[in-house]
């Protein structure tokens, strides 16, 4: 049955992707929910939250707020906070509650800007979509709203898009980026979503190049290319040496790599660099045409996943450990290599 999960559990939703991109931006983030979504986002999908809490708030909606559509009350609450934090902007993130009552986020944004005297953006998440859509929409909203046209080119600056813990399964991703491109002239990495704030978003037009490390950053990279002419490359520099070595040893085997598509494609290239020629990428998330091959699989149901792994077409599966149980239940008895994806299991790869 579509939507039924018997062995897997739900992946990170759009609202988690949105909050993850916003987390280091320096603004106030208000999740338009009753509290439970905020608990899930911060308590489960945002690994930076326990070490470095940020001004993330729940709107604390109650049944009568939803029934009566008390947007003005929400704006008043936001206004009471905004003056105290000194934040440069406010972001409002949707959840199932505003989706059901059809909240007018555009109006809510205007009301917030007027009441708080701050620029505001809204990301219309519904909780039914996956994190990569929420992250992608948030990047687009931020660049469209804040990126300036008249910035001086900065050849030493490189933008990194799609770099959030949900995508790279790390909190320490910046050092991997620095390490991967240390031999180039690149010096200053603006990791939008991890370490770089709204001021760097404003200067996005000045960077010499963007690196897209996950599909959620691709729409923004295309937008920045169109608007500023900034070229971009697609790469995933976060696979550890140990895992790369494991991948190289898979040459000659039939391998299914499941992850976000940029990471899966990078794993495929590593295997192919060692002589492998039978690697298929699968993903539950966006699969941009630039890095998708004809044989790659877009998973949409648990049953489809189980049928695929039970087909006997693969000797090895490299995927998040959460999928191991479903794979075994489907009858897959080949090798299973753990390739963590935080948006799936909530497991991090951090080694610091």
């Amino acid at each position, binding site marked *: 049955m579509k939507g039924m999960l018997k062995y897997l559990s739900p992946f990170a939703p759009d609202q988690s992707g949105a909050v993850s991109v916003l987390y280091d931006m320096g603004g106030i983030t208000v999740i338009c929910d009753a509290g439970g979504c905020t608990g899930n986002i911060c308590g489960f999908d945002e690994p930076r939250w326990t070490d470095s809490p940020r001004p993330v708030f729940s709107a604390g*909606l109650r049944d009568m707020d939803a029934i009566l559509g008390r947007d003005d009350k929400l704006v008043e609450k936001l206004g009471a*906070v905004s003056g105290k934090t000194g934040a440069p902007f406010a972001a409002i993130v949707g959840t199932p509650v505003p989706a059901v009552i059809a909240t007018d986020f555009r109006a809510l944004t205007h009301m917030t800007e007027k009441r708080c005297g701050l620029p505001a953006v809204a990301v219309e998440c519904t909780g039914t979509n996956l994190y990569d859509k929420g992250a992608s929409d948030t990047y687009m909203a931020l660049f469209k709203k804040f990126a300036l046209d008249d910035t001086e080119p900065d050849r030493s600056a490189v933008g990194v898009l799609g770099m959030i813990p949900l995508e790279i399964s790390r909190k320490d991703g910046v050092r991997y980026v620095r390490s991967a491109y240390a031999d180039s002239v690149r010096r200053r990495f603006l990791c939008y979503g991890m370490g770089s704030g709204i001021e760097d978003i404003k200067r996005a037009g000045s960077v010499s190049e963007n690196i897209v490390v996950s599909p959620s950053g691709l729409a923004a990279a295309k937008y920045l290319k169109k608007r500023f002419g900034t070229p971009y490359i697609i790469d995933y520099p976060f696979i550890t040496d140990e895992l790369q070595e494991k991948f190289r040893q898979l040459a000659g085997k039939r391998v299914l790599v499941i992850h976000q598509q940029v990471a899966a494609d990078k794993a495929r290239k590593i295997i192919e660099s060692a002589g492998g020629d039978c690697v298929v990428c699968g993903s539950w998330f966006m699969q941009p045409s630039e890095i998708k091959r004809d044989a790659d699989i877009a998973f949409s149901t648990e049953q489809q996943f189980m049928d695929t792994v039970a087909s006997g077409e693969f000797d090895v599966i490299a995927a998040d450990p959460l999928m191991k149980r479903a794979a075994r239940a489907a009858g897959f008895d080949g090798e299973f290599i753990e390739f963590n994806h935080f948006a799936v299991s909530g497991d991090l790869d951090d080694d610091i």
Partner: protein
Amino acid sequence: MTEDTAYYITAEKLAQAGPDGVPSELRSSEHLIYSSPAALSFNSPGAQGFGVKRAALAVPGSIELLVAPGCCGRNTTILSRSGGYRDRFFYLLMDDTDIVTGRHLRKIPEAVKEAADSCDEKPSCVMICITCVDALLGTDMERVCRRASEYAGLPVLPSYMYALTREGREPPMTSVRKSIYSLLEKRKRKSDVVNILGEFAPLSDDSEIYEILKSAGVKKINEISRLTTFEEYLEMSEANFNIVVNPECRLAAGDLNKRLGMPYIELRKLHQPSQIRRQYELFGSAVGAEIDDADYLRRAEKTVNDFSEKYHGISAAVGETLNGDTFEIALSLLRSGCCVPEIFGTVSGENFVYIKRIAEISPETRIYTNLSPTMLFYDCSDQPVDVTIGADAAYYHPDAPNVPWNSDIQPFGYAAAEHLYRALDDALEGRNRR
């Protein structure tokens, strides 16, 4: 108070204001809710301890089908991995069309059957957990469950994880307690059987309440978390009366009284030996038994007195992510000679009986709420403390020794008082050694 200061009110001022004068800063409906680690148990009760999803699986042999957008089931990934729950959670995820049209309701009977059929053993019942979306759609889940029950051939019950109704008449954690006892049907009652209701994990084995009940003639004490079979669960209907140890179970106990004619009596989690004695006296009067708790009382008093002598005047901050009433524990500490400069709690009318006493002993005690946006500016150097109780208090004072006091196993009675003061002693000894 300046703009960048965490809001608090002193116990004296709050006591003067009374239940009708609680300032808006302490009322969660009046402001945005700050999402700090200290507020996690409010925003997502299931993230630690028992939330609706885990609680709903209290019925032995049950499984659960979460019918919701994917976001509502996200943190269940943690639960699904832990012992005893891995094979018990199933999901029917809603899409955009479902949340507008409610068409997902038609899929539920088949999903229930598919989940039940995939289990190695037939489940005793299926709990269907629904969330804010169905609250807004006005779903008649009782009806949907009846239809699913007929289709799948086993009991199907609703559990409502409606965060939107958190401060309503029937909040989620109250409602789920009613649900899990709703399969009990009228049976012949036995005078020597008692149920202890309210928690989803047992009271601590060394709680004197078991011996006290036995000395009063009770031969069988049922707690849902100690039952292993569905038949044992159904035998709870034979109890002579129920003991409610968590106020959130009053509604369930009232329902059992109404449906099965099973009366209930409420016992609180207390930490002052004299108050515990008073409670047992009242309990004895109510059930017509003479209770001899002198030895337990003596032991608890000795533990508390020893602590008082050793640590007189130390300062403790008390949070709310703990087993018990924040304000009752704070009062207990004050009466044992500690200072309580800070309390992090959610104020309700029921707390005022303690707040008034706290105000008499320590009028300057500051009362904060974890949920206030101003907690962004909380600075622990303002009032350092020697020890903290509760995971949230530990968040504010990371360098002070901490007693989490939030285990699944529930301390109760004199044993709870002894455990608390020993745990405080252990924590403080640990700090002293460092």
